[in-house]
């Protein structure tokens, strides 16, 4: 809901908002330039003195104005000469005619009204309202993502588009909110929506005597020049006319003959606020503020562009659910927790089948759970499990939000996972337990589906149909992911002698068959994942990437598993053969930006991405690699490359451990324990720890690291949440 409030106006009005913001940014430079150009106003000068100086030069002077841009001007009609002249505040001398530059006028009109008069002004006001809504909702979305309003300044992690959008957004938000509000106030003033005080009492009686010298009039002496807004001279042909002096204090009528103040209307609170609003919006009289607001405004087009990219990516990532009824009107709600898109596919099949059976069904992501969802009679939860039992991407906040919402619909939970993992469907279990604890009646006991089996899904559909009282046939056909072909360019095989064959495989894009030109690899970096679909299967298997696009080759380390369909296929691949693959970004598993130290820990084929990080360390930041294998003679992956990296200072230290070494078997966690003091010092300096390898190794490493960091007052969960401990575990 909040996301829609933020995204739809932002994208629909992106072009208009960009025009308003960019013209505003251009105009924001003007106050700084004016300040440099305009002569300073002497602090002690009074209006009377200057008026006398100008009147001496121009007998027909009608008005003196101190304008918002800092220039002092006099309008005069001396008979043969007339015009508006700039005045030197110190001497009253003329500095040339006053004219607003054509460029400034153009930009001002484009900014206020898109060059379209009053209708354009209304459009600009609508834009300002939208800008206000988008900025406030953006801040709320960011706070939600980072974990609360207090966390707004935490580092933002994610894809480049997400980082740019978040960083620029939170820098510019305050400035944009202020500019929108002040702009709307000024618009209201222009359209007469703010109550205006009428002019000063015109029933004031002037003395009608002969005009005294301007410099002696006490009423004019009472006001300082720097507070002046406008001084109107009396019409010489009308003896009843008076001086009208508008200044920061208000409006003062001064008799031309006696100099007495005939009436003083103080500036109302509203007028003072309007003055302040004008300063805050244009930066006039506050040139530094003006420049800062201009910078905030200049961010708007970039925010619009990155916002569009994020929106498109979200839309593309989620499969469309046809005929999605609004939550309030649904009798069955399906909530989906999916990491890739496969669970959404199942949800789509279920949604279509239930709709065909006459139900009104609403499908949404688990993260978006609201009270309306829980108010429906029936709730079906389809939840995949990620990694060690963690919630998948679209369900990260589900349990926390659920705790705050009322409602006890009848539920059935369906988990999706892989039986070969120890915590099969652990997250789905957690969800089922939470819902049972609230007292939700159970439609069906929780079922777990192994490896996206369509038959198990169909069986569940029959059971659900039985519970609902009608037939329900779920025929799910998995949508194969979009893949591109890659060709094997080279391979190195290690570890055969110790019974743990690991191959380093290098792939390239196929060459253009007509021209022979080399193909283009997709965009990826070391740490991302490649999904490879073996022939005869539709489910991809994921491997961590050891290289980046700029290395010109896609490199992975694949351990041969006895019953592994994909690993067998890859190990038997001949050079020149082709595979079907796609890239999945893994932005969390990356060295943090900057030149802080890195601690890389891995075992076996897990060295792949770690070697990629070392290879990419051209900046020479300290990198300490800990790796465990079986035998130095047989499966020391990247042995020569790492030696070269040590010499080139891309790698600072390398500690290896071999479990089948005749001279002394050790594991990588032993090396970590032995180096505890040094590692503790590195963590104290802000080091980031990246771990890649099998589950068992990861657990052992965790146990070895806890005592290392505890004396610093830290623990691994704390390091994890600040991004200083990241894992890629399979």
């Amino acid at each position: 809901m909040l996301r829609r409030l933020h995204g739809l106006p932002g994208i629909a009005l992106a072009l208009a908002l960009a025009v308003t913001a960019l013209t505003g940014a251009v105009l924001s430079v003007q106050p700084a330039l004016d300040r440099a150009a305009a002569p300073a106003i002497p602090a002690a000068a009074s209006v009377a003195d200057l008026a006398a100086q100008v009147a001496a030069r121009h007998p027909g002077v009608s008005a003196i104005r101190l304008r918002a841009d800092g220039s002092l001007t006099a309008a005069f009609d001396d008979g043969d000469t007339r015009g508006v002249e700039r005045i030197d505040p110190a001497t009253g001398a003329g500095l040339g005619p006053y004219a607003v530059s054509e460029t400034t006028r153009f930009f001002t009109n484009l900014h206020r009204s898109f060059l379209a008069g009053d209708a354009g002004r209304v459009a600009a006001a609508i834009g300002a309202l939208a800008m206000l809504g988008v900025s406030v909702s953006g801040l709320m979305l960011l706070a939600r993502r980072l974990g609360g309003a207090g966390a707004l300044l935490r580092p933002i992690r994610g894809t480049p588009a997400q980082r740019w959008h978040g960083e620029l957004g939170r820098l510019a938000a305050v400035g944009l909110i202020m500019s929108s509000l002040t702009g709307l106030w000024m618009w209201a003033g222009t359209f007469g929506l703010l109550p205006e005080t009428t002019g000063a009492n015109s029933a004031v009686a002037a003395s009608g005597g002969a005009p005294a010298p301007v410099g002696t009039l006490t009423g004019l002496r009472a006001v300082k020049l720097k507070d002046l807004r406008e001084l109107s001279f009396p019409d010489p042909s009308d003896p009843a006319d008076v001086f009208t002096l508008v200044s920061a204090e208000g409006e003062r009528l001064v008799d031309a003959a006696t100099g007495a103040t005939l009436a003083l209307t103080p500036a109302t609170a509203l007028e003072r606020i309007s003055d302040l609003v004008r300063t805050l919006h244009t930066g006039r009289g506050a040139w530094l503020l003006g420049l800062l607001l201009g910078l905030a405004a200049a961010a708007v087009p970039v925010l619009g562009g990155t916002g569009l990219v994020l929106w498109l990516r979200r839309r593309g990532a989620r499969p469309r659910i046809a005929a999605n009824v609004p939550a309030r009107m649904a009798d069955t709600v399906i909530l989906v927790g999916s990491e890739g898109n496969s669970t959404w596919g199942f949800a789509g099949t279920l949604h279509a089948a239930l709709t065909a059976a006459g139900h009104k069904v609403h499908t949404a992501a688990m993260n978006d759970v609201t009270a309306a969802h829980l108010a429906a009679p029936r709730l079906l939860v389809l939840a995949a499990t990620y990694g060690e039992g963690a919630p998948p991407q679209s369900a990260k906040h589900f349990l926390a939000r659920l705790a705050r919402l009322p409602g006890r619909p009848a539920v059935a939970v369906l988990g999706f996972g892989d039986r070969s993992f120890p915590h099969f469907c652990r997250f789905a279990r957690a969800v089922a337990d939470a819902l049972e604890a609230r007292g939700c009646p159970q439609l069906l006991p929780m079922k777990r589906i192994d490896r996206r089996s369509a038959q198990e899904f169909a069986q569940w559909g029959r059971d659900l149909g039985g519970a609902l009282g009608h037939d329900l046939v779920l025929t799910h056909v998995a949508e194969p992911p979009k893949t591109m072909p890659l060709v094997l360019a080279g391979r190195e095989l290690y570890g055969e002698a110790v019974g743990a064959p690991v191959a380093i495989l290098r792939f390239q894009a196929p060459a253009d068959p007509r021209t022979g030109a080399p193909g283009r690899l997709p965009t990826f970096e070391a740490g991302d994942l490649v999904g490879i679909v073996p022939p005869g299967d539709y489910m991809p298997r994921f491997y961590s990437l050891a290289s980046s696009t700029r290395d010109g080759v896609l490199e992975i380390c694949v351990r041969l598993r006895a019953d592994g369909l994909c690993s067998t296929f890859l190990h038997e691949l001949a050079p020149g053969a082709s595979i079907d693959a796609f890239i999945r970004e893994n932005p969390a598993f990356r060295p943090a930006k900057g030149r802080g130290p890195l601690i890389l820990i891995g075992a076996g084929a897990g060295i792949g991405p770690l070697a990629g990080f070392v290879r990419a360390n051209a900046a020479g930041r300290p990198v300490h690699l800990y790796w465990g294998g079986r035998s130095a003679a047989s499966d020391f992956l990247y042995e020569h490359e790492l030696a070269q990296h040590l010499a080139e200072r891309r790698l600072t230290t390398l500690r290896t451990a071999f479990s089948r070494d005749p001279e002394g078997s050790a594991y990588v966690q032993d090396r970590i324990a032995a180096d505890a003091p040094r590692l503790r010092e590195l963590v104290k300096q802000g080091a980031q720890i990246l771990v890649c390898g099998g589950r068992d190794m990861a657990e052992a490493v965790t146990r070895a690291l806890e005592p290392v960091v505890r004396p610093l007052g830290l623990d691994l969960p704390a390091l994890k949440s600040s991004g200083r401990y990241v894992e890629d575990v399979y």
Partner: protein
Amino acid sequence: MKFVLPAVAATATLLSPVLAEARQVTFETTLKPYGGNGAYLVLYVTDAAGAYKGTLWMAGGKAKYYRHLSDWQRASGGRPAEIDGITGASVGSGKTLKITLDLADAMIDAGYKVHVDTAVEDGMDNPSEVVAPLAASASGKPLAGKGYVKSFTVTF
């Protein structure tokens, strides 16, 4: 924003009670190409003694700027009733404002004068820039203003 002028329009103060005693009068104001935002103009009538009789037309919609038309402001008191129903858009640089009104015969050739006040944002205020006699003999003769008015013509 161009507006379509009514063929017959007059303020309550100037409308003749008996239509037979009225005549159609056309006021055409052409502005110089002064290069700025739209100008505010007001056309109003004073009698032979110089007393304010009524407003013919206000070109410019935002009341907060009317004080720049200072002669009109002083003469009429700036009361909204004076311009109720006879307000239009401001006139752009180099553009022409043409209005046609029914005026009572009694006002013509009676020493009455039409005043034109003009003002431009960030420019000059020109009170009573043009003062033209409401006389049949002056029909069709253009007058120039010393401010923004290039030519002002009253046609009977």
